[in-house]
């Protein structure tokens, strides 16, 4: 980690925390198709939290150990897994996984959020629910180092073999340091003392 950048990242994440708490603790569901959809799912899965964000956008928060159970339930209404986004909250030491689902029949987009610790990040695979998850999980494994148990194809995917197991999209990946080791003297025109480099 570049010493110049580290305090900045910590600052950012610290501010994030107080904002999230009131957002979740307001489970007032409107009387729309989105509200009914959320209420229906929460009835079957009381361990999850859900709310309606706006028209055609709903949101769920699920504990990591029950994510598979929840997604299995959700897959009845939400036919498509659009993508699995990973956000690295460095200060909190957590990865946030956002399973983004789309319901073709209801035209509703759902964020299913879950948080897992950064150390030894492990998740069950959802390949058996949506086979397309294989690709997304391979990507998340390669860029963040999350192990999806049950996915047989975790390995070099997009990156070159020399970059494998380096997990470049983690916030503590030292990008400039890595580029320096690879390109050496060609990289000398960059000044280390500058903090906010736009490459």
């Amino acid at each position: 980690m570049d010493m110049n950048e580290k305090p900045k990242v910590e600052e950012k994440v610290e501010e994030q925390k107080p904002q999230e708490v009131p957002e979740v603790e307001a489970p007032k569901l409107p009387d729309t198709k989105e509200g009914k959809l959320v209420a229906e799912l929460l009835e079957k899965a009381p361990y999850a939290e859900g709310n309606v964000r706006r028209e055609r956008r709903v949101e769920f928060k699920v504990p990591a150990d029950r994510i598979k159970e929840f997604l299995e339930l959700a897959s009845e209404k939400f036919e498509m897994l659009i993508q699995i986004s990973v956000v690295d909250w460095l200060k909190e030491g957590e990865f946030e996984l956002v399973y983004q689902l789309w319901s073709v029949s209801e035209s509703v987009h759902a964020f299913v959020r879950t948080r897992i610790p950064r150390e030894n990040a492990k998740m069950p695979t959802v390949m058996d629910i949506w086979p397309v998850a294989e690709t997304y999980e391979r990507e998340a494994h390669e860029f963040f180092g999350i192990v999806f148990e049950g996915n047989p194809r975790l390995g070099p995917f997009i990156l070159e073999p020399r970059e494998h197991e380096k997990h470049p999209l983690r916030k503590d990946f030292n990008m400039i340091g890595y580029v320096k080791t690879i390109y050496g003297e060609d990289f000398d025109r960059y000044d280390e003392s500058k903090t906010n480099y736009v490459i």
Partner: protein
Amino acid sequence: MSNLEVPKELKTEAKAHDMYLHPIDKDTYELFFGPQHMATENFSIILKMDGNRIERAIVNPGFLHRGFEKLAEQRPYFTNIALLLRICVPESDVPENIYSMAVDEIVGWEVPERAQWIRTVVLEMARMSAWMFWIMGFGNEIGLYTAGQWAAAYRERFMRLFEELTGGRVYHIYTVPGGVRRDIPGDRWLRQLRDTVEYIKGKMKDFDEILFDNYITFERTEGVGVMDKRFALKHAVTGPNLRAVGVPYDVRKDDPYLLYPELEFEVPVLKEGDSLARVLVRRYEMEQDLYILEQLLDMGPPSGPYMVKDARLKALPRFKPPRGDAYAHVESTKGDFGAYVVSDGTHKPYRVHVRGPSQSHGVTVLEELLKGARLADVPVILKTLDNCPPDIDR
């Protein structure tokens, strides 16, 4: 079998050069298709062949990886536009738009009507020029080069219009959060656009004769690369590929954005799910896009500003949206193109995750569809799926 084994010195030589020689038996052999092959567009597929039939296909992406998502975390919000639009080259306005729409949602900006009109026109023009690009690729793959050359020439008309509007031919850097970067040049530009639409509408008949209604196209695509509805939904196939299996899902109808709720257009659906259905769905969509452009031109650009009025826009590099996240998606010619942007309150995005449509239909689906196909079908399946490698690599 002993006589087929690779000689030892060849093995050591290969290892010294960081290569591996896979043992092969009498009938099957390994074939590297791409990244140099023209049909694949810098994409590589490793094929296990049994004679002329494909036994197994392994997708090998990564030749276009440029680390845009990591770079986007190091740049201010507005600078990212010039970076992210390079994800999908034939349709570079789509990444601009989804990123801008996601940032708009985080900030809470309501884009002015004039900007919405311009954005819709730009998106539809991008779709038309991307269709022309696709005809070029597909025509060339099945040997109908004339269609491809015509399409390349017609695409040039849109390029010229784009150049006058934005200053760039391929990369436009035009749609920015809060509106568009500058106003439309004037009535002459609108007249030129109408002329182009009329012109290409007249040329669709020629395309039918030479490409879509052609014996060769039917012969090469019918019954090739068939998928069913359940398979397509489970694999998150979107766009024309999904509509070719009978699911009428179109982001413009199901999750309307910009001016699309006010426009009339149809979503063409076919049921066969083979390559021919995918080709024909695209042909019908071209007609719908021309129809949409006509409607937009009849509507005319609404008066008003083309950018939101916000004091924060005066110091662009230090522009800070509030904390939050948003997902925006639009219908591109490849499918459902989306961007997930997370803001932590600083002047750079905390995370940008782009969902390229080829990510879902270009890896597992392609591998499945290639199983049992002939070698000559590989470019046909690739092109009818409209696989765009930078969507996967980013």
